[in-house]
């Protein structure tokens, strides 16, 4: 018996390879938005690598944290590379997450039978928010300090046990080295492991039901004599080589940012990140990073703190029920002009909210913030009715594809 036969008999890997790569049939008409999924996988791996390297030099104490982080920048061999990869990687992951989700909304990928793929994916996004927040606090810059204080104080709004929860999360009455210790534990073990587990589930659930595509029609509906979908192609080698090309383009962008614009106009690395924590020097208008600011704008749009928190929580949770709000038999917005326009308004509004969330809390922004929050919520509230009655065009029986 050859070694290969001996190994194959005992190994689950060949079967997994076939199921998820060589014989996973994906629609052949994926467009550019479909790169985001594999790029997210790449970025999570890179984030783990750079995170591992910076962790090796990080000191989780109130006195040591800030200096240790800059020790990496100035003294560790290629420390700046590890650090910038990790910092800029976060923002790029969120760029990809938003593209990936927008793709799902444009083509109705959240619809039956992919509801669980969507829900698991969205949970990953929420886990990433938590991961980013805990990471944010670790350098113990002044921004870390005040962002940590503001966000943990949100727990105070929980009825009855709010104060107790806040103290538990902070590890004391205020931010301190104890906070850093528990946030580090959360950042590098618990939340990260949850993210990895969710990603595995996400892909297993997707491969059980098969991928959607820009036309929103099921390729499994037309199968060839060999039992495979006629419009499907094996993931490996077709999409694996295509994604390899995507990796290349994406890494050029990532590299250009790291080497030539690491702070990205101080959007990826905010200015107040570059001054140490100072409980006496409060940041008057501490704003969250760009990828969380749409929700922050909604929080702020209501003057009552608790009502604002409720609105924000509702806004964050709404996408979970999206699969059941959409009631049109046609999935892709390619054939649903009205929903497509609503979606575009929704996306633009999300950008506007991100902008507003970065502004100081001035009265002149209140109206725009409220309007933005209203449009955000209105999309989800209107969708069940619009999707029920909107006129649609008939999707084609087979996917639209032009051979390259």
């Amino acid at each position, binding site marked *: 018996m050859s070694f290969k036969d001996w190994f194959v008999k005992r190994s689950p890997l060949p079967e997994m390879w076939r199921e998820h790569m060589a014989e996973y049939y994906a629609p*052949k008409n994926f467009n*550019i938005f479909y790169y985001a999924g594999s790029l997210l996988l790449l970025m999570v791996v890179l984030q783990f690598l750079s995170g591992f390297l910076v962790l090796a030099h990080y000191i989780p104490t109130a006195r040591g944290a800030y200096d240790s982080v*800059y*020790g990496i*920048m*100035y*003294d560790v061999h290629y420390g*700046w*590379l590890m650090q910038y990869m990790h910092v800029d990687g976060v923002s790029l992951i969120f760029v990809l997450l938003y593209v990936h989700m927008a793709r799902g909304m444009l083509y109705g990928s959240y619809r039956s039978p992919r509801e669980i793929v969507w829900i698991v994916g969205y949970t990953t996004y929420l886990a990433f928010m938590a991961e980013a927040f805990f990471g944010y606090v670790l350098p113990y810059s002044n921004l870390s300090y005040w962002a940590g204080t503001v966000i943990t104080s949100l727990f105070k709004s929980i009825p009855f046990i709010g104060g107790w929860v806040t103290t538990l999360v902070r590890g004391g009455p205020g931010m301190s080295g104890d906070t850093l210790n528990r946030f580090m534990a959360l950042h590098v073990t618990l939340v990260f492991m949850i993210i990895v587990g969710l990603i595995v589930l996400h892909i297993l659930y997707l491969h059980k039901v098969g991928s959607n595509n820009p036309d929103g029609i099921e390729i499994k509906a037309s199968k060839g004599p060999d039992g495979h979908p006629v419009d499907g*192609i094996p993931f490996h*080698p*077709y999409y694996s*080589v*295509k994604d*390899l*090309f995507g*990796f*290349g*383009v994406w*890494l*050029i962008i990532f*590299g*250009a940012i*790291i*080497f*030539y614009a*690491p*702070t*990205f*106009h*101080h*959007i990826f*690395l905010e*200015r*107040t*990140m*570059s*001054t140490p924590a100072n409980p006496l020097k409060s940041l008057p208008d501490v704003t969250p990073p*760009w990828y969380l600011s749409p929700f922050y704008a909604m929080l702020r749009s209501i003057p009552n703190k608790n009502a604002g928190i409720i609105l924000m929580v509702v806004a964050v949770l709404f996408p979970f029920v999206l699969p059941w709000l959409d009631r049109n038999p046609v999935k892709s917005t390619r054939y649903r002009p009205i929903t497509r326009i609503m979606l575009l308004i929704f996306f633009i509004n999300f950008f506007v909210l991100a*902008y507003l969330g*970065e*502004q*100081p809390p001035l009265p002149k922004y209140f109206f725009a913030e409220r309007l933005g929050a209203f449009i955000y919520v209105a999309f989800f509230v209107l969708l069940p009715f619009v999707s029920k009655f909107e006129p649609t065009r008939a999707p084609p029986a087979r996917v639209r594809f032009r*051979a*390259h």
Partner: protein
Amino acid sequence: MKKYVIWAGMTLGLLTGGAPAVFADNGPQLLTPHYTYNAKTIISGARLFATNCMACHSIKFMRYEFLTNDLGMSKTDVHKYIMLPTGSAFKNNMTSAMPTDMAHKWFGLPPPDLSQIVRYKSQDWIYTYLLSFYRDPKRPSGWNNHLFPNVAMPDVLAPYGGIVNERGQVLRAGDEPPPKFKEQVTDIVAFLRFVSDPSVVQRHDDGPWVLGLLVFFTIAAYFLKKEYWKEVK
């Protein structure tokens, strides 16, 4: 294809043009220093900083050796122009010799560390700040600043730039003509920018190689993909 070009164009436009404008601070009007960012400007800024600022301010993340390793300054020059006569070693951090309790006594607070000041406040802010001092008899130090009201720092650059009162009238001309003085201030700003991120030298050295390699990889991947996808009808 055309569609993608338009998309890419829009995204790029947003990122390069829109983003900075969108995220701009709503602060006071600042002046912008104009210069070429190279070793010469940085070194001349380093010399000015060492003579005029390091008595009070540390740049604690910097080390003297970065000046030779990254900027190509000679060791003798560093000894002669940069190092304070405090017997500091070459590998040491560039810290000021001022004892903290003395600083408290003189200024009410220790002069802040300036390692990250360009990251924190921006080049424009520092440039404007250094050009905004004026004589104010009401202040204990005799100095005030338009950008940083009631600042505890004296106008240490007055010998070069001269002294003005609150309304900008010249009380005493400086040793340097105004354009030359602005150039000196610009050099200090350039040096502090370097101090905020010395990796810039290595980044710009390595960048073209890394990106070149990635471009090569991407082109190869593109043709590989094209070859495979020929079969997809």
